[in-house]
């Protein structure tokens, strides 16, 4: 359960989130849509604990824990996963090494045994097959020289491997072709269940055709101005944000 209450956050002293409240129950997938500059990415970074995103008011509880008091890596091992809008390149760091280190950090926190290289490879290969990723992507340095689509696939591989309790997808669909979009949706849908919830941040309704959300929220000027069922996304697609903003 993720419970965001009256969240205010600023970047470089400039307020971006202005009293955002949102509750996502286990098993639910919510979508947040909104125009550029409405605070969508800020919300995802605040949840993940990035430096420079200063919370000035409000609270976030995550499965009963005070999320905002936790270090980024503590949030990660507690089950908070952020799929990056622009995945970061790590020159010289092998993708397999990175992923196994991350997986074992998460497993340690869950009280599970660490995976050795063989067990890890077996699992990774199986997941990659589903994601239609060539195996040599494990050997390449993390995201270095990856195409935009490959980077997003790699994010989905990490998501599938780490199997978090909560995933934030920060405009993961941007710049993807229809096949890649379905791959993203398949990954999220395969994780859906009573112990998994997600916040899908997107500009467009098309991803939500494949990941059908339980709730859709419209973000504007750092606040949620309207919430509804999946039909709200279609309404937005038809009338644009301006119509909803005017009505709110």
């Amino acid at each position, binding site marked *: 359960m993720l419970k965001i209450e009256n969240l205010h956050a600023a970047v470089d002293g400039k307020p971006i989130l202005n009293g955002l409240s949102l509750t996502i129950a286990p098993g639910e997938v919510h979508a947040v849509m909104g125009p550029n500059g409405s605070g969508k990415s800020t919300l995802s970074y605040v949840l993940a604990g990035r430096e420079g995103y200063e919370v000035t008011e409000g609270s976030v509880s995550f499965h009963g824990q005070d999320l905002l008091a936790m270090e980024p890596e503590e949030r990660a091992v507690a089950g908070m*996963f952020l799929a*990056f809008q622009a995945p*970061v390149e790590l020159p*010289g760091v092998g993708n397999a090494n990175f992923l196994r280190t991350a997986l074992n950090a998460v497993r340690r926190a869950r009280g599970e045994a660490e995976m050795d290289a063989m067990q890890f490879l077996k699992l990774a290969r199986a997941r990659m097959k589903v994601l239609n990723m060539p195996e040599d992507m494990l050997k390449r*340095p993390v995201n270095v020289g990856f195409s935009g689509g490959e980077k997003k696939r790699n994010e989905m591989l990490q998501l599938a491997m780490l199997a978090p309790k909560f995933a934030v997808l920060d405009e993961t669909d941007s710049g993807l072709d229809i096949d890649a979009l379905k791959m993203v949706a398949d990954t999220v849908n395969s994780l859906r269940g009573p112990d998994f919830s997600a916040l899908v941040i997107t500009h467009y309704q098309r991803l939500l055709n494949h990941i059908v959300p339980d709730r859709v929220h419209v973000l504007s000027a750092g606040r949620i101005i309207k919430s509804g069922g999946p039909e709200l996304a279609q309404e937005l697609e038809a009338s644009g944000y301006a119509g909803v903003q005017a009505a709110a």
Partner: protein
Amino acid sequence: MPAVTETLETVQSVTDSGYKWGFETEIEMEFAPKGLNEDIVRFISRKKDEPAWLLDWRLKAFAIWKKMEEPTWAAVKYPPIDYQDSYYYAAPVQKAKPKSLDEVDPELLKTYAKLGIPLKEQAILAGVEGAGESPADSGRMPIAVDAVFDSVSVATSYKERLAKDGIIFCSISEAVHEHPELVRQYLGSVVPQGDNFYAALNSAVFTDGSFVYIPKGVRCPMELSTYFRINAKSTGQFERTLIIADERSHVSYLEGCTAPMRDENQLHAAVVELVALDDATIKYSTVQNWYPGDAEGRGGIYNFVTKRGACRGARSKISWTQVETGSAITWKYPSCILQGDDSVGEFYSVAITNNRQQADTGTKMFHIGKNTRSTIVSKGISAGKGQNTYRGLVKISPKAHGARNFTQCDSLLIGDQCGAHTVPYIENRCMTAKVEHEATTSRIAEDQLFYCRQRGLNEEEAVGMIVNGFAREVLKELPMEFAVEAQKLLQISLEGSVG
């Protein structure tokens, strides 16, 4: 920016806990009187029962040294060294020269076990005899070790096994007696006595070190290594290593080193000479982990070292790989003289400076023969208040037709109080030669750190991973057994600065 600043503070608190090799061994020692003069040089030579030619060689070096001045061109700062305030000979008291490893003082064996250095020989095939005794023993390929403790070699393993292939692996003191013709022919032939201030000092007072000779056509069947340990207080270590690879031979050699944590600075001035004849290959790897001093810059080793290899033969190859994590000051330029036509020189380096460490390191590639090739890959990592300088010379003589060099120098900065400097010298006097130089400087980006942490890695793991990625091109040149150790060492060395 904020991420890095906070990281710096977070981990500053664990400073000093990182150096695991800082213990001291309590053992009865014999010293020469403190100070340096002709009598000390004679004392050392007498202790080693050396032939007259070697004493004369030392005395000549001492005479040269007295006329020389300490170099000041390196980008390092330190108070003047009082060369009279140090011991030049310190050795564990031994009743008689041990004939086998079983006779070596148990305290010494314990010391090396604690350092993870396998002195006990494993059954070559089974590889299980010593398993479990120390982490370094288990399940690995055997490694022959010469253990140098302060001024003397205390044990050398696998000598008999290697002798079956005609390979000579022993302390240089022993080689002076057993193989005087080889020592006399090659000693000082690559680094002459008057080469530089520290090489002259070393030539006068060197006490021990390793000697390797690989005969024609022989590929050395195991890694050879020397482990240098400074233990005694107020003592300098001056060792001399000489490796000769005869025609068509191949050897991979590794040196490691550690010292106790002390407030005083101790001098380590070594000389390493390599000679590769026709079609021979020498791969020389160093994992330098001398005590670096504390966070305020108290103590630590002054590592003033001259290393040079001569590719005398056609198609010969000398490859230097160094991972420099320790020492308060590093002054070191492993170099290649590419005399033989088609000979190859390589230099792969990772140097870390953290806290107040200073490193001025690089290489010199002298292209003399035709179609000689050299590759230089230098990765400097600066953290804390560390200063890291790459200094390199590529010199191409008029007759080195078709010579080629490629140099890549990358610097990584962690925090905002450290420095990285690149000083490449290129002297090309040949029209047909080709020289390339690339350099980059970067910081560990906040987004890289955040990305790793978002996946569950803590700050130390994240920085360790990013730094190891940065150094990967060099680390992959290390023998596999040591690459893993080196990776851990990089991470440990950065504790107390970032993560």
